[in-house]
C-alpha cells in the first residue's frame, strides 16, 4: 500500500480522496493555489504545498509544480480526482517516468479514449454497439453530404477534439449539410484548435445512461450498474440517479456486459465509466468512455454499498478487486443534485463568501462538499459547491427525501441552484421518470398559456 498520496485536485473531490486515504491509513499531501489557502482539503491533509497563483493553468494544471510537490514531500502516488489533469495522458506518463503511481489507467488508455474517433473505432472493433457514423474525420462538405445521406437523417456533426456542445450541428435534410459542416469546422477550430468534424446518426431525445466499471491490474473487470444522467444543461449534468427509471435486470446485464467488454478491449485498469445513449426502443449506443472517477460516483456507492475511491487506491497499489461481479447488488434508489454557485434562473455564476451554511442530515442523506460558513467561493474554478445525495428504498422515497433536503439546505451569501433543483423535483416528467437529454430544454422553455 502507498505511504503517501498527493491529491492533484481541490474542493470536494480532494476531500473525498482524503477520506478514503484516512480510512486506509495512508498519509495525504494536498496541493493548493493561493486562492485555496484556507480550503478544507489543505486543512485536513497531513501535509500541504502551495503550488501557484489562483489561475488553474499555473496551479492545478501545472504538472511540473505538482510533480515537484510530490518529490519534495516523498509522495509515492498521485490521485488526480476528476477534471483538471485526471485525463491527462501526459501527467500519467510523467508519473510513470518519475516512479510515482498515477491512480488511474495507463497513459495509452487515457489517450485512446480521449480521442473520440479513435475510441469509437476501438469500440467497433470490440463489437460494442456504436452510433452509425462516418468512419473518422470528414474531409470536406461533399463527403459530409454523402455520408449524411448514407447514415440517414437526422444526423449530427461533431467536433472530434472536444465536446460540451461546441462544434456541433444537427442536420435534418441533405440540403442543410454543407453549410452546417463549414460552420461546425469553424467553431471546432475556435474552441479546440482543430477543425476536425465527424458525423453521426442523431438519436432523438435519448437517455444518457452510463455504466460504472472497475478493473484491477490482473484482468478482473466488474461493472457496478448504471447511472441515469439525462438531466443536463449545455452538456453539464445537473441531476443523476441510480437505478435508471427504465432499467430492467435484463437490460442492465446486457449493458453491463457490453461495458465490461469495452473496458477489456482497451486493457483498462482502475475506475472508468462508459457512457451510452439509450433510445426509446431499448437500443443503446456507445458514446464515450471517461477514464477517471466521476463527480456522480457517490450515487453508485449509495446503491451498491461500495467505496469506489478506496477501490481505486487498492487497485493502483496492485491489489485484486475486492469484489466479483456476483457480489454486486443494488438496493434502493439514489439521487444526486449538483448544487452550483449560480443564479437558479439565469445560471450566472455567483462567487462570494458563504455567510450561512447548513447541510441537511437525517436518514439516507449524504453531502459531499468543501464549502462551509466563511468559505470563499472564488471565480477561478468551477461553480459546483456541493453534491447533495439521498438514498431511499425506492424512487418515490428518494424523491421525497431530496425535496425535503433541498427545502432545508441553507446557503446564504451566494446564489445557488437549489431553487432550480427543487422545481425539477416537482416536475411531472421527472416524477414519472420520463427523462431524456431534452429534459432541460423543455423544462426551461417559456410556458405557453397560463
Amino acid at each position, binding site marked *: 500500500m502507498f505511504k*503517501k498520496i498527493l491529491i492533484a485536485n481541490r474542493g470536494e473531490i480532494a476531500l473525498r480522496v482524503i477520506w478514503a486515504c484516512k480510512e486506509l491509513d495512508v*498519509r495525504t499531501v494536498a496541493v*493548493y493555489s*493561493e486562492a485555496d*489557502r*484556507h480550503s478544507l482539503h*489543505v*486543512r485536513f*491533509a*497531513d*501535509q*500541504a*504545498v*502551495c*503550488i*501557484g*497563483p489562483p489561475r488553474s493553468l499555473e*496551479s492545478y494544471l501545472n504538472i*511540473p*509544480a505538482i*510533480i*515537484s*510537490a510530490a*518529490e*519534495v*514531500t*516523498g509522495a509515492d502516488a498521485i490521485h488526480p480526482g476528476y477534471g483538471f489533469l485526471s485525463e491527462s495522458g501526459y501527467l500519467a506518463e510523467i508519473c510513470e517516468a*518519475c516512479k510515482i503511481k498515477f491512480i488511474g489507467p495507463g497513459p495509452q488508455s487515457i489517450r485512446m479514449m480521449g480521442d473520440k474517433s479513435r475510441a469509437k473505432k476501438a469500440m467497433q472493433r470490440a463489437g460494442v454497439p456504436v452510433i452509425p457514423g462516418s468512419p473518422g474525420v470528414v474531409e470536406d462538405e461533399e463527403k459530409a453530404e454523402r455520408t449524411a445521406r448514407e447514415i440517414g437523417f437526422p444526423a449530427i456533426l461533431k467536433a472530434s477534439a472536444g465536446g460540451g456542445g461546441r462544434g456541433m450541428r444537427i442536420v435534418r435534410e441533405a440540403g442543410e449539410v454543407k453549410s452546417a459542416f463549414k460552420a461546425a469546422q469553424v467553431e471546432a477550430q475556435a474552441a479546440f484548435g482543430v477543425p476536425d468534424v465527424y458525423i453521426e446518426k442523431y438519436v432523438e431525445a435519448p437517455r444518457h445512461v452510463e455504466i460504472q466499471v472497475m478493473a484491477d491490474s490482473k484482468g478482473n473487470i466488474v461493472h457496478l450498474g448504471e447511472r441515469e444522467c439525462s438531466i443536463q444543461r449545455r452538456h453539464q449534468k445537473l441531476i443523476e440517479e441510480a437505478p435508471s427509471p427504465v432499467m430492467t435486470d435484463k437490460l442492465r446485464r446486457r449493458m453491463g456486459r457490453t461495458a465490461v467488454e469495452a473496458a477489456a478491449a482497451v486493457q483498462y485498469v482502475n475506475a472508468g465509466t462508459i457512457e451510452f445513449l439509450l433510445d426509446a426502443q431499448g437500443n443503446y449506443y456507445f458514446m464515450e468512455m471517461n477514464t477517471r472517477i466521476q463527480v456522480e460516483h457517490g450515487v453508485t456507492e449509495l446503491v451498491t454499498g461500495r467505496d469506489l475511491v478506496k477501490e481505486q487506491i487498492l487497485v493502483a497499489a496492485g491489489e485484486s478487486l475486492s469484489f466479483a461481479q456476483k457480489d454486486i447488488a443494488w438496493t434502493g434508489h439514489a439521487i444526486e443534485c449538483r448544487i452550483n454557485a449560480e443564479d437558479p434562473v439565469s445560471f450566472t455564476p455567483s462567487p462570494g463568501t458563504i455567510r450561512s451554511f447548513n447541510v441537511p442530515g437525517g436518514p439516507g442523506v449524504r453531502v459531499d462538499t468543501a464549502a462551509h460558513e466563511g468559505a470563499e467561493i472564488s471565480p477561478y474554478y468551477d461553480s459546483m459547491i456541493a453534491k447533495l445525495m439521498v438514498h431511499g428504498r425506492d424512487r418515490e422515497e428518494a424523491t421525497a427525501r431530496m425535496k425535503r433536503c433541498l427545502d432545508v439546505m441553507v446557503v446564504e451569501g451566494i446564489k445557488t441552484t437549489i431553487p432550480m433543483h427543487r422545481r425539477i423535483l416537482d416536475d411531472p416528467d421527472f416524477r414519472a421518470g420520463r427523462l431524456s437529454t431534452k429534459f432541460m430544454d423543455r423544462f426551461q422553455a417559456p410556458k405557453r398559456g397560463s
Partner: protein
Amino acid sequence: MNLDELKQLLQLLDEREIAEFELEEDNLKVRVRKAARAPVVPATAAPPPVAASIPAPIAAGEASPLAPAPAPAAPPPTSEAAGLEVVKSPIVGTFYRTPDPNSPPFVEVGDRIKPGQVLCIIEAMKLMNEIEAETAGEVVKIHKEHGQPVQYGEPLFSIRP
C-alpha cells in the same frame, strides 16, 4: 552569550552605525533597532526554534504527526521591518544555497547584490532553476536552509534596497 559579550556586541553595532541587527543562536534571540541615539535591546530567551509561522508545514520526507496549523490569512508574518523586498519562491522544489556541494553559497547575509545576480538554486524535477535578484540591495535575511523544500510563494530572502 553573557552580558559582557552583549555589551561588546552593542558597542560594535554602535561603532559601525548599524541601524538594525538580528541574531539567533541556541536559546537566545537578539534584535536591535536604532531609534534616535540609544539602541533598544529586547533580548529575550527565545523558545527553541520552531517553524511556527509557515502556513503549510512541509516536513521533508517525514509526515508530521500533528495536524497542520490553520493557515494564516496573509503570507507568513515575519519580523521584517517595512521597506524590505522579499524574494519569494516562484516554484515548488528544494532550496539550495550553493551552486554545487563543494562551492560556497551564492550569497550571505550582509552581501550587496545586483539585479540579475543568482541568489540560489531551486531544484524541481531534477532541473536546477537559478533564482535571480530583481532589485539591488543588501541581503538582510535568508529564510530557508540549504536543502529545505520550498513551496510557491514562500519567502526566501529579504533584501534592503
